């Protein structure tokens, strides 16, 4: 598919500049378009609301910086939601890049809600092994994560003394960008240990997991930036995802315009080619 030189293949830098403008403009001047809440997102919210105050919930963060724009708002909103409901949070990661990203969210939110590390929340950090680690957690979480992110032994963390395995975790929010991630949590943890599990994934990945929502293995699903924005609205804290949705709206509309324009150019140039052929 070699590059042609006609208008059908206009310099793509022109397209890039327009996309950039379409992203930046709504971020500076929010349109505040109304947004409906989709059922899988509502289910996530309801599931967290149904957990009794004081229970321990888990945030399984399996993502890296590249997917932060989509997934960080989900993790932040979940932490906010859990802290507001006085739930205690255990963070566990199967991706090495995740712990510092979660830490970025935990720091300011724990200050805002006056939560204390070790009693109200704990970041167990990263453990290699993927599925093996998940199965290990089913037997014993402290044995699988012997120290927390900072290197403190879990035996010295009051919150962890109450956690043995998934029986002590009332709800798991799995925020995942790939493998190991949601699929492994469903197949290895939910099906074996009957954990109350919900997931947040990238928009590209979400279609893979709707079957699990249908089968009830996932309580709910936050799909991409839109899922994150809906969750933010439900929790009553519109943030990065909500403002990002305006940008996404404008960019989608722009791409539709490109497609229509591309087709007009295509037809016009084809007609002129035909006419040229007839003239010759």
């Amino acid at each position: 598919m070699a590059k042609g030189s006609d208008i059908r293949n206009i310099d793509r830098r022109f397209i890039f500049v327009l996309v950039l403008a379409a992203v930046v403009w709504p971020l500076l001047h929010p349109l505040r378009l109304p947004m409906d809440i989709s059922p899988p997102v509502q289910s996530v919210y309801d599931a967290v609301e149904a957990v009794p105050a004081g229970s321990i919930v888990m945030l399984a963060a399996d993502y890296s910086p590249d997917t932060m724009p989509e997934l960080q708002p989900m993790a932040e909103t979940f932490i906010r939601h859990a802290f507001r409901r006085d739930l205690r949070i255990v963070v566990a990661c199967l991706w090495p890049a995740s712990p510092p990203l979660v830490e970025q969210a935990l720091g300011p939110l724990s200050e805002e809600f006056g939560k204390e590390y070790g009693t109200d929340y704990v970041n167990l950090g990263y453990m290699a092994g993927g599925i093996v680690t998940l199965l290990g957690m089913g037997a014993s979480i402290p044995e699988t994560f012997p120290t927390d992110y900072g290197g403190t032994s879990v035996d010295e963390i009051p919150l962890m003394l109450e956690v043995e395995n998934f029986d002590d975790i009332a709800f798991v929010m799995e925020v995942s960008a790939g493998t190991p991630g949601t699929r492994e949590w469903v197949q290895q943890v939910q099906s074996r240990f009957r954990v109350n599990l919900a997931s947040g994934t990238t928009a590209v990945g979400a279609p893979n997991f709707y079957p699990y929502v249908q089968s009830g293995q996932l309580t709910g699903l936050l799909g991409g930036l839109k899922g994150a924005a809906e969750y933010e609205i439900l929790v009553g804290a519109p943030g990065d995802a909500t403002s990002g949705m305006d940008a996404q709206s404008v960019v989608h509309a722009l791409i539709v315009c490109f497609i229509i324009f591309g087709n007009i150019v295509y037809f016009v140039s084809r007609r002129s080619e035909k006419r040229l052929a007839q003239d010759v």
Partner: protein
Amino acid sequence: MRRVIPLAITFLIGMFMLVDFFVPHHVVSSAAAEMKQWGTIVIAASILLGVGNLIRVHYKKISRKQEGWGYSIVTLSVMVVMLFFGGPWGTIQEGSVFNWIFLNVQVPLQSTMFSLLAFFIASAAYRAFRLRSLEAGMLLVSAIIVMLGRVPLGQFLTRGLPEQATLPWLTETIMAYPNMAAFRGILMGAALGVMAMGLRVILGIERSYLGGDK
């Protein structure tokens, strides 16, 4: 002989993993878990091979002053810097230099690469969605519906219409039925392909991945 031992190991381990799927006895499952641990360790240790390759390729490039050798200097020096700060002062601890570089260099770099996708999708869509035939037309129309239906703008544009005519509803219908059906069809075909391939590998019929047939 050079092929017999790897093929025998493949056969035995492959068969054992199959047995593990059907036998819930903890003797089997703990042995299988142990083997998976070995796999993780072997893969983790292999990073040294990668580092060796990286150093060799870029060192040659620099010493021969091949085109673009300046980039090779950047690659090797960044690796040395990260190893230097990661070794004695720890990697992921809050406040470490390694962590600082990770958050302030790698995070923005990776986010930038990922966000390039938006630009590439726009240019690919401009080029690819052409009304060439009936099928291409159907693809084009559904692409427009899904793109608008997935964002609040779609909801805004078709507000007030009966539910079955709104863009979000049409989007959900397209995604849940034709898309899901095609998706599952490909997935099931691929799953059978995986099984057949797995069987061929376990039985040693497929062996070119070991470096040839001999």
